[in-house]
């Protein structure tokens, strides 16, 4: 009994550590920044419009 506890509890602590590390990693990677848009991204037909003015065609004047 005691022997199995000696092994299993440190193991559970290790798993807890792993879970915390994985969660922190995901937060840092921005996984929770936007929970709305990405789910719809696959359904978008067009490329998102390019907001950068430098790619605009030259004016005709």
């Amino acid at each position, binding site marked *: 009994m*005691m022997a199995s*506890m000696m092994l299993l509890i440190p193991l559970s*602590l290790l798993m807890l550590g792993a879970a*915390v590390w994985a*969660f*922190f990693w995901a937060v840092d990677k921005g996984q929770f920044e936007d929970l709305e848009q990405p789910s719809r991204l696959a359904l978008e037909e067009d490329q998102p419009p390019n907001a950068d*003015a430098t790619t605009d065609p030259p*004016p005709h*004047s």
Partner: protein
Amino acid sequence: MSVIPLEGHWASESLGEGHVVFNAEGIHCGNCARSIRKTLGELEGVRRVDVNVVNNRVSVDWDTSKLALGRILGQVSALGFKPVPLVGEAAAQAQQMERRLALKRIGLATLGSTQLMMYTVALYAGALQGIDERIAEYLRWTCLVITTPVLFYSGAPILRGALADLRRRVLGMDVTVSLALLLAFFASSWNTLRHSGEVYFDSVAMFILLLLIGRFVEMRGRHQAAQVTDALAKALPTMAQRIRSDDGVVERVPLAELRIGDLLRVNTGQVIPVDGTLACDSALIDEALLSGEPLPQRHVRHDAIPGGALNAGSALTVRVSRLPGESTLHELVRLLERAQSERPRLGLAAERMASWFVVRIVLLTVLVGVVWQLIDPSRAFPAMLAVLVATCPCALSLATPAAIAAASSRLAKLGVLVMRADAVEGLATVDTVMLDKTGTLTLGSPRITRIDTADGWDATEALRIAAALEAGSQHPLALAFREHQHASWRCEDAREIAGEGIEGTVDGQRWRIGQPGITLTDDRGRHASFEVTDPLREDAIDATAALSALGLRLVLLSGDRHEAVQRVAETLGITSAHAGLKPTDKLQRLRAAQAAGRRVLMLGDGINDGPVLAAANVSMAMGRGSSIAHAAGDLLLLRESLQSLPEAIRVARRTLQIVQQNLRWALIYNLAAVPVAALGFMPPWVAAIGMSASSLLVVMNARRAGALPAGGSVP
């Protein structure tokens, strides 16, 4: 002390008066705000300090000859708060950092407390059924190992808040919470070390988790409220396409290099960078961001176009009429920032109540401890802990600011900007609406609706002659003729005869325009008559009907002629209409109504009605285009739609209802929990759940103020 980079966008300055608004991270309660106000207020040269607890904003006006901005920011960071610029990349990054850190803290607390719960169940089961003492001790040590990072990493903002409170010698709600957490943690650790007594590790972790969730919800609300201004501020591009005057070549220049009179090119879908006048024949402009008006509007040459509007049609050219720093959008952002950094009176009352509570809770806790020590020493500690936790007035402090913030962003979506923090409360409690006619119920721009000419005379010619005569006149009706002016028709010796009309020579011929009505005559008896009216806004009828349906008394106050006012009043079904009033008469009427116990909302165009607007209980100004900066009002209606007004009143009433609900709930909960906890019927973990659930309930309830259900009716 951290050194803060000083950049141009931190502050604005004019005539020796500086104005800055920034976020101060770490403000949690009224006491933090009070200490900032006090410290900055004592600096020489500071004229005004406002601190908002809801969105952590600090707004300062100061004399730039006596004080540098660096001193102000330095003082704030010396108090333990981190000043962060509001607008632009840094603010967005600071928000992201804050959000990520909060998520991590919640994540650790969640994982930690679920794990702790399992060990605690084992310990409880063991206590009932018998457990090997070595295993129980092993489990307690494991709990200690898990709780330590939860307390000192996840709980760090709470502990730090308490420390900052103590350093300033004030008692905030963080103090009681931290006291409970530390007492429980160290008592449990001590019991673990000496192998006897209760442990409360699970309660500590759970309390932290629940507190953090409440704060997270509150933080999201705060970030959302800040988004309105940030969206405005971010809308302006940093570069513009200038058309060189000598060779017509288009060059890209930074906004700072623009001068008045420059010709700019704006491509399809781009934002117009500064206020200007349209220099091409027509354009389709989308002002949704500025006014909330959803449909793009057609504009013609010489129309004023506000910076921040979107070019929804083909490429256009615009002539710069104001420098970037003075443009409509900048003024709006500045006004809004000032408004958002003010503290509503309602919130102040709740704050005072909360700090009154803290002192009494600490005293009560000590009393409970002493009494239990005499009766049953083993139950003294859990009872003290329960009292401390269950009675924390967190819900009380959060009840109001969260609701006001939610309502403000809801109102902004209706095109109503809250310029003064008390305006929401004011709007909810008015029972009388006083309306101005010209420019408020009507479009404010008189138009020529009919021309009658004698003997088949050309109407266009008559109109041009009339326009030439009226060109120099200051009469309001002369405005109607302005758009018909033509360069080849000039009047040389226009002479205004008071109450009669204007005489002058146009194209070698004597003309007179004036009474009766507006009639143009010459010596030979040729004549034409013009009908000029100021048309009602399209939705004025619906809006006034909706206001009456809300139980509001409508009063029309106008400086206009009796017949014109009567006609409008009859069309709109307003029974109380007063014509021919001077601004002082309007003020008198308003005061009389207030003296009769009525609470008055004044709706005016914001420019001529200044004093009347200021005297009303709450005022709303029609702020359009370039007039925004001059508008004086607690609320600003940006949309050309009066329909927003009844809607805004509904939102405000609902918000006030929610605030009162919240305060009542927080008070009842705290009063009910104290005796139960003091008598020892409440274990600390139940107290933790109760207190946190109460705060969470209050914050979630507050967010309802931001959402109006479809149909939008309020009992």
